[in-house]
């Protein structure tokens, strides 16, 4: 099964989650590669393609170009790499436009690696409906890193309960915060555990509030 990515953008910050599973092997973060000031995430059939994609990304000519130029430069290289073999390979390019505006591009073998620009979204095979619902419902509240992580983990928990993630995905979750001009910051396992605990508390509060109010109005 594929691994997946959830990326959230607000102001000048990108928060992203990846499950970090390659085939049956749990790992941490090996599918996220720094390329100059950008980050490239490899997803779906990572086990087959990661090593070869990393070789492409190590080219010197890719290390000092803008995010959109990097995405475009990867198109012919990935097409040559995969050739006509049926493939399930996705690549997400993350960076900062004009050095301040977060920007995400996606390329996938199913679309011949056509470059698509993404809004904050779920990438890599997970359904978007729970994500869309949370974005709509919580629209208007002040977004900060904690809020973005909370939303992402709520989605991850939901999809895990539905059986949509690889076994081991939750345990090997990696969450990163990317700010323009700064090094990527990975949350520690303790920080992730703390966020999950806070989310569980919110879910309990939500359940209690709904039970009290929906039943009282005759639901």
């Amino acid at each position, binding site marked *: 099964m594929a691994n997946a990515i959830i990326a959230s953008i607000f102001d000048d910050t990108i928060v992203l989650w990846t499950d970090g599973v390659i085939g049956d092997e749990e790992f941490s973060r090996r599918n996220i590669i720094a390329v100059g000031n950008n980050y490239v995430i490899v997803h779906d059939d990572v086990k087959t393609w990661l090593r070869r994609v990393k070789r492409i990304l190590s080219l010197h000519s890719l290390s000092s170009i803008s995010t959109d130029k990097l995405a475009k430069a990867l198109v012919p290289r990935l097409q040559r790499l995969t050739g006509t073999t049926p493939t399930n390979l996705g690549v997400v390019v993350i960076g900062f436009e004009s050095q301040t505006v977060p920007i995400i591009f996606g390329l996938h073998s199913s679309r011949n690696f056509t470059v698509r620009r993404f809004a904050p979204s779920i990438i890599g095979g997970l*359904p978007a409906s729970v994500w869309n619902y949370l974005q*709509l419902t*919580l629209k208007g509240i002040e977004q900060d890193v904690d809020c973005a992580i909370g939303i992402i983990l709520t989605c991850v928990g939901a*999809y895990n309960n*539905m059986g949509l993630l690889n076994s081991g995905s939750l345990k090997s979750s990696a969450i990163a915060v990317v700010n323009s001009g700064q090094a990527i910051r990975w949350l520690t396992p303790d920080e992730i555990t703390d966020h999950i605990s806070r989310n569980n508390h919110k879910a309990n509060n*939500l359940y209690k*509030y*709904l039970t009290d109010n*929906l039943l009282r109005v005759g*639901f």
Partner: protein
Amino acid sequence: MTLAIAIRCSNGLVMASDSRVTGGARRSADISEKFLQINRDVGVMTYGLAEPGYNGIHGIVEEARQNPSNFTTMEAITNRARTIFQQIYQNYTTQHQLPDGSLPPYIVQQGVGYIIGGYDGNDTAQFRIYLSESKGNNFQMNELGDEILAAQWHLASFLLPFFQYTGMSVVQGKKIAIMLMIITSKCEPSVGGPIHLATATVEEGFTVVPDHDVNVIIQDIQPLFATLKMAWLQAWCGE
């Protein structure tokens, strides 16, 4: 695609579906008929590919109309339904096969599914729900537990535990089903259009809820959407 729901309540079943169908090449329309009554107590609904879906539900209903004595128990209905659904799907896939023998991606991705639900009065005296979906070229027919959420089910599956409760009746079940339909249609473009609703109770058998009554329920539950949003904001930002 669509959203198909079947919920077990304390006094019966609620089945709901949206109207959106998708044919080939991502065409969609909101005019589909997805529910039919097989006999007094049992009904069938379909989701996914429109053509085999319609043909499947009409096929089982037509046979039940011609030979009602062969369709008196849920076991008899589901056994025959499985054969009909399988045959219709095989005819459909044969018709739409590509020159290399493969199927178009939209057929592989969507498939077709059926939910049969109702009161099995002549055999087990229980409310029963069955799900039959195309998996490759095979159709399984599985009896499922308290609810079935099919097709674009993910958001409904996430929200349902917050809504349902032990002892809820068909009256509450209808409100929950409609709420899930409306919320999903706002977040998933392949779900939408008028909502089809049906219930199965001992007193009234399988009954398709008229559009007017569905609209009344939609009006009744409007305050609940605000309550739900408040609940999320309270839980997210409050203490």
